[in-house]
């Protein structure tokens, strides 16, 4: 590494703190230490760094480049030095990226990207490396280790076995995570490049997973428990999902009682959405999609032998949050005091047809208080129990007291 490269590195670190520096001055300070006083480059860097830090009253810059960090503790904005093992390498998405993958130590794992511009040495899968002066950035809501022109990479001999720590699904954060989970649902793939998608669950909850098509990638077996090491946790619209392409997954013995993400909510139904009431469903085995009024299924086209169903898509509002809810037939029948058979009869004998059922269901529930419970999924509460709220005189007494009974 040359003097000017080191000067650049120092300047960048200081500038990251919002102070501008003169690179030539930095370089001449370094040169003076190295050439005139025979100080080695690493020591010169440390000295100039801490001089500048003192001069500008900065904290957290001096010395950080050689201090070791645990991967688990890394936060965006830091310059760090880590030692870790390459546990995944992904195909480079662009010529400007030399390598990308996942590096792990005993505390955790992080995604990394090495830019081609810095000419980084090629790292090998399974090998341990010491990475000095890398930067932690945020990429799609997750910390990401960036290897740039000022980063030094050296191999480290280590035979420490690396045991990934398993995270409960409810505690996953964007980044990299290892889970022990069961495949609870297998969905139709929505894209040509997708190998498999579905739902994984452990005791604490469930999460969507995706495997993209790639040589050597295998599907997960249904209802099987897997140890999944170093999957990528993505966040999209506030929801997390697991991408298994970087991960190693090994089927495991035993079973898991999958937790149900059960949530409850009380409030008023303030909106009944189109698509509520009586609907028609596609009769093709395993399809069950909602048909249009003209009996058209987006996949199986015209289906004259549809079957009827009742459902309610609505918004339950508690005054601080408006939640989308979806209620299935048996509960809609109860809330609207209307069975599916009666609804079909109404639709077939009324000039308004299915609209009449919508109006009846809507009139029965709109503007009323309910307590519902179910699984929250995809930003929507899938209701499996729901009852009208009833007036509680104790609540009235409590509120009268709160409002100040003595003033009356």
């Amino acid at each position, binding site marked *: 590494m040359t003097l000017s490269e080191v000067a650049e590195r120092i300047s960048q670190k200081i500038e990251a703190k919002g102070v501008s520096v003169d690179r030539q001055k930095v370089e001449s300070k370094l040169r003076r230490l190295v050439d005139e006083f025979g100080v080695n480059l690493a020591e010169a860097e440390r000295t100039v760094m801490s001089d500048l830090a003192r001069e500008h009253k900065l904290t957290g810059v001096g010395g950080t480049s050689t201090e070791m960090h645990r991967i688990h503790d890394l936060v965006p904005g830091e310059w760090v030095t880590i030692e870790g093992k390459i546990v995944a390498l992904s195909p480079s998405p662009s010529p400007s990226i030399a390598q990308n993958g996942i590096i792990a130590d005993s505390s955790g794992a992080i995604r990394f990207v090495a830019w081609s511009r810095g000419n980084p040495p090629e790292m090998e899968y399974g090998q341990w490396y010491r990475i000095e002066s890398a930067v932690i950035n*945020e990429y799609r*809501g997750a910390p990401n280790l960036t290897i740039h022109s000022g980063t030094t990479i050296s191999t480290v001999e280590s035979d420490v076995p690396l045991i990934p720590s398993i995270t409960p699904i409810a505690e996953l954060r964007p980044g990299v995570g290892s889970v022990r989970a069961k495949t609870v649902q297998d969905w139709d793939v929505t894209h040509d490049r997708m190998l498999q998608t579905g739902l994984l669950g452990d005791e604490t909850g469930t999460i969507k997973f995706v495997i993209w098509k790639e040589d050597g990638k295998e599907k997960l077996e249904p209802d099987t428990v897997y140890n999944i090491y170093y999957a990528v946790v993505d*966040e*999209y*619209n*506030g929801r997390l999902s697991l991408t298994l392409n970087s991960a190693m997954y090994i089927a495991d013995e035993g079973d898991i009682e999958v937790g149900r993400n059960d949530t409850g909510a009380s409030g*008023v139904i*303030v*909106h009944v959405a189109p698509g509520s009431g009586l609907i028609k469903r596609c009769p093709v085995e395993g399809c069950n999609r909602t048909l249009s009024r003209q009996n058209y299924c987006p996949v199986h086209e015209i289906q004259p032998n549809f079957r009827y169903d009742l459902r309610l898509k609505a*918004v339950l*509002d*508690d*005054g*601080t*949050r*408006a939640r*989308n809810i979806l209620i299935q037939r048996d509960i809609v029948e109860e809330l609207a005091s209307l069975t599916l058979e009666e609804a079909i009869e109404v639709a077939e004998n009324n000039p308004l047809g299915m609209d009449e059922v919508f109006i009846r269901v*809507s*009139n029965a529930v*709109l*503007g*009323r*208080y309910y307590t519902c419970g179910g699984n929250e999924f995809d*930003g929507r509460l899938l209701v499996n129990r729901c009852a009208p*709220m*009833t*007036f*509680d005189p104790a*609540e*009235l007494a409590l*509120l*009268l007291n*709160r*409002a*100040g*009974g003595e*003033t*009356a």
Partner: protein
Amino acid sequence: MNRRQISYEREPARRVFASELRETRVQFKEGEDEKSPTYVLLPSGVRANRILIVGTLTEKQRQGDQNIFYRGRVADPTGPFFIMAGSYQPEAMQQIARIEPPAFVAVVGKPNIFETPDGKSLLSIRVESISVVDRETRDLWVLDTARDTLDRIDAMGTTEDSQRAQEEYSIKPELYRKMVYDALSQIHL
């Protein structure tokens, strides 16, 4: 975090008594965009883009020749709300058309402040939906609104919106507690 996509979230319907809404005269828009939501700042210190009221529809009027719209009054224990539904709210208009006052109704709508020609400001609620409910729902709403109003008064000065409300309205918390108390005591008359 800053560049994270913000997914669309429906504005909650705030619970507010008529006599608080009558005092409301601050209206503002968040953001420059044409579609940015408009809020009114309630004196108890929270912004409202949408509100829920449950009360008695005491009268309704059909007005206009070409552009038909409905006006109505909905009374809660503290006073009347003014509601309206025009041709931009066809469903709400048809719903009102079917209801004969007096009736207990639940109204979800957007509050709007208008300047009258004589310089007074008038708040009316543009109805999104109106439905007939029963007395128990009305009582539940009074409890709900009492609780939310007391919560807001207790949180006065702790949020940005409530600090702004304190500057704009300089309300007396004891008057609002009295209003809540009076509303609650009418439940079992």
